[in-house]
Structures are given as structure tokens and as C-alpha cells.
């Protein structure tokens, strides 16, 4: 069936009702992924059913929620259940890993230096050249040291972003310094975006669900370490990354949600 055939089949209405066979259910689910028109149609049908059923509610349901939280032992203030604290381990680990890489880097430079010393007389020009390289390596090292210092800052909140349906193997990580109002986004675990597409970074609040764009990563392929500093003055409760047409979109395209992660309460 093509998109229009799905829409006029009457299957989508029954999909929302939950009365299709398992096989039909799967057909509709894959049609929704394949055709955005089908997806939109399902969303509209659902919104319609939500509206008419809601019109039949006998009273305000809002007032029931506190009692539900209480029954669940979640009552009172913003008692948000925290994610397991695997973050600290990863910070420590990446810290050590970076330190080891640095140590090797230094060792390499010292060795380089020695060799240069031996060849000094016969290769003055060459030395000049290599010294420049060393200067550059030193700069790089300093840069990496700075980055490491930034990521190790105690104010830094780490938010792992997990891969979502469209690309489950994707991952990313946000390091967020609330006081400084900026984030460092590590997107090494994302595939190169296809031609004409860019990754867009979103700050989300959850109630109500509101996305705020933090910008697009248009230097993804060019950037070597895949870590981007982005300003974030928002009271973020989650971060997400979607794939969007070049230039980005005003709202996230959820079918193209690559990674998503919650800020621990």
C-alpha cells in the first residue's frame, strides 16, 4: 500500500483504537516510519479521539495527580528519581584515558627532541621546521589539557545521550556547566551526517514538553575531536540531537531523533 492507500483504508483509525491484528499493527507502524503523511494522519486521528473522550470526563482530573504521586511514594516536592550514577565512573575513566594519551604524547615529544639534538648540526633548517611542529604539538597538548580541565570541573554535569530508534548505536555526551551557561557536546559516537543534512542540538523541558534549539553542528565532518562548545542558558531537563535539513529546523523532527538523554534530578 502507498501512503494514500493507508490513509483511506480505515486501518489507521483502528490502529489508534488498538483493535488491529499484530500483523496489521506492524504494517501500520512501518508505514508511519516510511511515510510522514501516514504518521501525521495517525497523530491527527489520535488527537481527535483524545479530544472527544476528554469531553466526557466527569470532572477536573488535575486534582487527582497528587494522590497518585503519594501512592507511588513520589509525593511532595520535585522528588525526581535519579538515573543510576554511572557518570562518575565514565568521567574518571575518560580522565585517566586522556592522561595516558597525554603521557604518551609527552614521551613521544621528548624522544623527538633527543633525535633532533643529535642531528642538530647537519639539519638546522629541518630543526627549525620540527621545532615549529613541536610548538604546535605543545599547543595541541595545552588545548587538550584545557579541555580536560574543563570536563573535570566539579560544576560539570554529565549527561549521556543514548541512541534512539532511528540509529540505536549512536551515542553522545553533554558536559554542562550550569553556572557558566554552556555545554560541551561530545558527538564522536554519531555517524557522519548524510549530504545536505546537519545535526541539530536541542535542550528540552519535560512538562510541558518544550524543545529549544541550541543550534546546528555544521562543522561536524571538519572538526577533529568532535567536541563542540555551545552556549546553553536554558533550564534543560533533557538534551536531544536530531538530523535536520541544512540550516536546521524550528522544531525537532522526531523521526530523526538520534540521541536523547535526561539530566539527572
Amino acid at each position, binding site marked *: 500500500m502507498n501512503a494514500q492507500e493507508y490513509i483511506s483504508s480505515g486501518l489507521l483509525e483502528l490502529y489508534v483504537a488498538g483493535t488491529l491484528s499484530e500483523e496489521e499493527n506492524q504494517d501500520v507502524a512501518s508505514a508511519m516510519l516510511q511515510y510522514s503523511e501516514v504518521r501525521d494522519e495517525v497523530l491527527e486521528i489520535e488527537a481527535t479521539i483524545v*479530544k472527544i473522550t476528554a469531553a466526557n470526563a466527569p470532572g477536573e482530573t488535575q486534582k487527582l495527580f497528587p494522590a497518585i504521586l503519594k501512592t507511588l511514594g513520589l509525593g511532595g516536592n520535585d522528588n525526581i528519581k535519579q538515573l543510576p550514577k554511572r557518570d562518575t565512573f565514565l568521567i574518571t575513566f575518560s580522565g585517566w584515558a586522556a592522561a595516558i594519551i597525554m603521557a604518551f604524547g609527552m614521551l613521544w615529544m621528548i624522544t623527538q627532541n633527543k633525535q633532533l639534538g643529535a642531528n642538530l648540526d647537519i639539519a638546522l633548517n629541518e630543526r627549525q621546521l620540527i621545532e615549529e611542529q613541536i610548538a604546535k604539538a605543545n599547543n595541541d597538548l595545552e588545548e587538550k589539557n584545557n579541555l580536560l580541565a574543563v570536563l573535570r570541573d566539579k560544576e560539570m554535569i554529565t549527561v549521556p545521550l543514548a541512541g534512539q530508534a532511528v540509529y540505536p548505536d549512536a551515542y553522545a555526551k553533554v558536559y554542562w556547566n550550569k553556572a557558566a551557561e554552556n555545554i560541551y557536546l561530545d558527538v564522536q559516537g554519531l555517524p557522519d551526517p548524510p549530504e545536505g543534512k546537519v545535526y541539530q542540538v536541542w535542550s528540552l523541558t519535560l512538562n510541558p514538553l518544550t524543545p529549544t534549539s541550541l543550534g546546528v553542528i555544521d562543522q561536524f565532518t571538519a572538526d577533529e575531536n568532535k567536541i563542540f562548545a555551545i552556549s546553553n542558558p536554558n533550564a534543560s531537563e533533557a538534551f536531544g540531537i536530531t538530523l535536520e535539513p541544512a540550516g536546521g529546523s524550528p522544531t525537532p523532527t522526531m523521526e530523526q531523533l538520534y540521541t536523547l538523554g535526561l539530566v539527572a534530578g
Partner: protein
Amino acid sequence: MELEPLIFAFKEKNVKAFESLYDMYSDSLSGVIYNILKDQEMTEEVMQDVFVKVWHNSDGYDATKGRFFTWILNIARNAAIDKTRSRAYKDAKKNLDADLFVDILSSGDQFDKQTDAIGIRNYLGKLALKCKQIIEAIYFKGYTQKETAELLAIPLGTVKTRNRNCISDLRTILDVQAI
């Protein structure tokens, strides 16, 4: 804006996301439960049970198997039907009338005044009887196509198309209202 981030956060036991989903669907589920029980107090009891269950079973929702709304709608309907089998319900409801949801809707006064709902109720009155019946059966009662066909004494093949046409009418009506 789609739901994925909320569902993700909800499955991670994030209370804000849970509340956000509650705000989106609680009126709807309450409407469905009330349609079965016709009793506000019992509806509120069942509502609590439903959302407690939804929280505990958040892992049970699988996005590849259907919509989140469909999932909780099903939980709510089953909980309401269970309630009809309880002693408390049987004692309270000796003589139930078989009003359609729209008839309950249009008898408006026992409801809190939610402006949206009142508007929708007024417009629903315009829906053809056969549409009220089929929407009632499929969405409020959760009947299968076969059960719906038997209830309305129409051929099985008619259910899908009639339901689609009725939802289309409904969407037109609600759109008109939105303007």
C-alpha cells in the same frame, strides 16, 4: 512536537515526564472510564489505580507495538471493566441506563465547566447516530471489528469504512469549532 522524549523519560522513571503525559491523557481516560462506570467517584478511584499501574509497568510499553495513547487507553478500559465486576459497583448500579456517550455529554450540568469540553459536546450533537454508535463501540468500549459489526448489525467489512468516515466527520466538526 512528538512524544518520544517524554516516553523515553517516563520509562526512565522521570516524574515530570509522567506528569506531562498525565496532563495530556488524564481527561481522555477519565472520559472513557466514566462512560463505562457512569459514576464520578468510582471513576476517580479507577483513574488512580490506572496511573499507579502505568507507572509501575512503564517497561511494558513497547513503541513498536503501538501508540502510547492506545496502550494506556487499553489499561484504563480494562480497569473500568474490572470495576464493573466488583461488589461495590453492582450495589451502586442497580439500574443502569444505556446512554450513548454523547447523550451523557449533552446532559452537561453534572460536569465541571470545562469550556473546551462544553464546546465539543455541543458540536458532537451534530454527529449522525450511526457515527455516535460506532465511535462509542470502538473507542469508548474497545470493541473489536467483529463485536462492533454484531452490535450494530452491519457487515464486518463495513466497520472499517464507516468508522473512518465518522472520524473524518468528527475531525471536520472539531476543526470548524477550532475556527
